[in-house]
């Protein structure tokens, strides 16, 4: 963190996302336009008021460059950039927008994220035979996280049932969310009995492929009161990204039971936000539950519970919608699916609305500080954002 940091320098004045799911009706342009138009409407601005824009998209097959955004919303002649940082692409798009506003380079910036996955017709994330080294093995995404699950089972004695409770909780939350991809509750039995994807992770341990987009309009706290959410705009308390290796399986000291990138990003974000006890200070969190094992490890890496104790805390209701730290009250990636570039922005929109008391699904009671956490690659890139209310 530099001397100045970003705390209290950014105000979110508009936030919206699309319905997530199998959006056969929409292409990537439609999704982006839907989200950005919604965010502008929420902020009470015309899109032409946007001075600079970023879009998080992971995959190359839906277009390269800032034109992905400029063409998507038909806003030409402005500085626009496509951001790729794995599953944290959306969070990084937001970070870039924040820096532009904090630097005083622009007053109104757009952070967005989108991914159109369903059209690829892939079983699991597409493209795994297209990138990476020519010969060295590259596990599928669930297989990467299964390497951690196997190790957590061995070290902590966790079980398939412990993983299943993450899916059960998130589906219980997501069933109330009108924009979620999946809106049905599941039982521990459903999860445990599902077909294997990457042993020990079964189908319900994995988030789904999905389409969606999300967008946020940001400005400075000084200008924020003059926009539509002048009374209830949300401010950024911290914004951190941490990057480690693409290939943690070559790292001799790595134990696979905690993710270095999350630990590092969380430490930086807490420091910046002045959070000393996240268990008491964080009101809710949208964390990256790409797989059930990921959420358990995230909760520990984010300091929500002690090492090895996430299943116990979860079982005791600590992470429920009405628990001490509601984790994924929206239903998370488990219910929204994971259109890669969109997810980070989707979480930020979600937490913004929670802090404004207008959450779409399960509104958490009187939240003060909300956290978003994105994790991409082989635990490679982690983003942690903390949002709160103006000083």
């Amino acid at each position: 963190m530099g001397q100045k940091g970003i705390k209290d320098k950014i105000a979110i004045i508009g936030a919206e996302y699309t319905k997530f799911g199998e959006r056969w009706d929409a292409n990537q342009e439609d999704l982006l336009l839907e989200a950005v138009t919604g965010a502008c409407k929420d902020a009470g601005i015309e899109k032409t008021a946007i001075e600079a824009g970023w879009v998080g998209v992971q995959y190359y097959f839906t277009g390269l460059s800032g034109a992905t955004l400029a063409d998507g919303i038909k806003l030409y002649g402005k500085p626009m950039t496509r951001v790729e940082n794995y599953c944290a692409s959306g969070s990084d798009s937001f970070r870039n927008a924040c820096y532009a506003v904090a630097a005083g380079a622009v007053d109104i910036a757009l952070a967005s994220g989108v991914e159109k996955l369903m059209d690829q017709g892939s079983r699991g994330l597409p493209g795994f035979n297209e990138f990476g080294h020519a010969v060295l093995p590259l596990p599928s995404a669930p297989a990467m996280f299964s390497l951690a699950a196997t190790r957590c089972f061995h070290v902590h004695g966790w079980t398939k049932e412990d993983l299943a409770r993450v899916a059960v909780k998130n589906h219980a939350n997501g069933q109330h969310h009108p924009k979620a991809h999946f809106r049905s509750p599941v039982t521990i039995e459903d999860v445990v009995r599902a077909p294997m994807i990457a042993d020990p992770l079964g189908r319900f341990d994995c988030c789904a492929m999905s389409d969606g987009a999300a967008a946020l309009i940001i400005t400075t706290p000084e200008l924020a009161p003059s926009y539509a959410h002048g009374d209830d705009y949300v401010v950024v308390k911290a914004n951190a990204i941490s990057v480690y290796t693409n290939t943690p399986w070559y790292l001799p000291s790595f134990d696979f039971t905690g993710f270095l990138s999350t630990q590092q990003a969380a430490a930086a974000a807490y420091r910046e936000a002045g959070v000393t006890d996240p268990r008491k200070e964080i009101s809710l969190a949208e964390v990256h539950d790409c797989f059930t094992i990921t959420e358990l490890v995230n909760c520990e890496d984010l300091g929500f519970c002690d090492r090895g104790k996430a299943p116990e805390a979860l079982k005791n209701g600590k992470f429920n919608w009405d628990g001490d730290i509601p984790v994924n009250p929206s239903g998370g990636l488990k219910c929204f699916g994971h259109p890669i570039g969109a997810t980070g922005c989707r979480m930020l929109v979600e937490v913004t609305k929670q802090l404004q008391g207008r959450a779409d699904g399960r509104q958490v009671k009187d939240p003060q500080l909300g956290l978003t956490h994105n994790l991409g690659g082989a635990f490679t890139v982690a983003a942690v954002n903390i949002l709160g209310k103006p000083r």
Partner: protein
Amino acid sequence: MIGIASYGAYIPKFMVNRSQIAAAWDFPSIPGTKAVANADEDSLTMAVEAGLDCLKGFDERSIDGVFFASTTAPYLEKSSSSIIAAALDLRKDIITTDFTNSLKAGTTALLVACDTIAAGKAGKILVIASDMRNPEPATMYEYAFGDAAAAFLVSGGDDVAIELVDHVSTSEDLVGPWRRAGDSFVRQMSGKYDDVAGYAKNLASAVKTLLARTKVDPASVTKAAFYGADLRAPARIGKATGITGKAVLDTLFMSLGDTGTAQVFMTLIAGLKRAKDGEVIVLGGYGDGADAILMKIAPGGKDKLKQVKRTRRGYMMYSAMTEIVSTYTKYIAFRNALGKEPFKRKTSTVTVHRDGDFLSRMHGVRCKTCGTVQYPKWRSCIEPTCMASSNMEDVKLAKRGKVFTYVGDHLEGGDYYETPIPRCVVDLEGGGRILLNMTDCNPADVAIGMDVEMTFRKIHEGGEFFNYYWKCRPPRERAGAQEED
């Protein structure tokens, strides 16, 4: 003295019971099994295995050449021996060449290796014969053809255990078994003509000429390894040459099948037990002519063989560690008789060459700042507590280790015949951590802490070439299965 200083063998893990073939086609059953290479194996990868077995206890920097003999080299243009030499981490200033297109390529390669050393052009040459002949389903060849590899280290030093005495070669233009470029399967004219006018006549005559020239009484020959396309063929050569039936060694046709160019080598390796100094040995290879080779256990050779045997898997260990395939269909899928598109990834001949040190040679680096041994060959240290740049030294990594964590990946289902694929994070003996897919295993048996060893395999065919790399497998050895002395 010139001759054989060491031997090594490889037999694939899987066997087909001939009754499974019979049941598949409603054919009359014949007894026995045959060895079948897995879907990720070919004659080249099997040759690497036999070469690794053969070179145990020898300094790989002392090898001056690799001769690879096979009728089923994976490439028609591009040498296999150079790939094998890299996988065995041999020096680059050596001679490598492939002996192909004839079933006697193995014995011919052995002769040429001996002659090259005799000419003073090399000190040690590794000769590997390996075959994976693809039989047409529902033919007699399907019962016969088996897959295996065997190797001899030919030396001109005092480490020779089996001395070359003399050899005779003949050439015969007769269409025996053939396979045109582009043909999927070996063909052969029916009838006995090839057997009588080609095989029996050529091989017997070469052996007789050799014995006469060296004034060796056929009755004094105590080990004879003759190629045989069927079970009884070698006995006919023994009879025609005056070599006793007891001396004619089992070609392992009943257990391994006709292993092509590897057969004569494997026959001798399996028949070497209880070898005595001075024992007279005849090798006979056939294919478009014949090779007859007279060898003798060198003075002190018995003890040298005993020494070598201790660390060899050879025929005994590998044949004791096999498994019958659960279904005929599984075997057919190994040979891709179902015509599925091979697994491909985006690749580059440039990358594969530039990264050869860690892809084929399995080298890693040691960080001179923090001491961490790591893989692949990073320029800067991967440990987040160090990250020192450009302070690395090259290290050769061990090909054994223990599983640190693993996953049974089902998601690549469309790209492989069998899922889940166990992907294992392995801590190597002596340092280095690596991710390897596991092969030749039961995925349900994978566990944290289990011992694994590396095996060179065909990984994918992206770029329309063979991308080879290492996998891991449960070790193919166990106490008590060594060869007898």
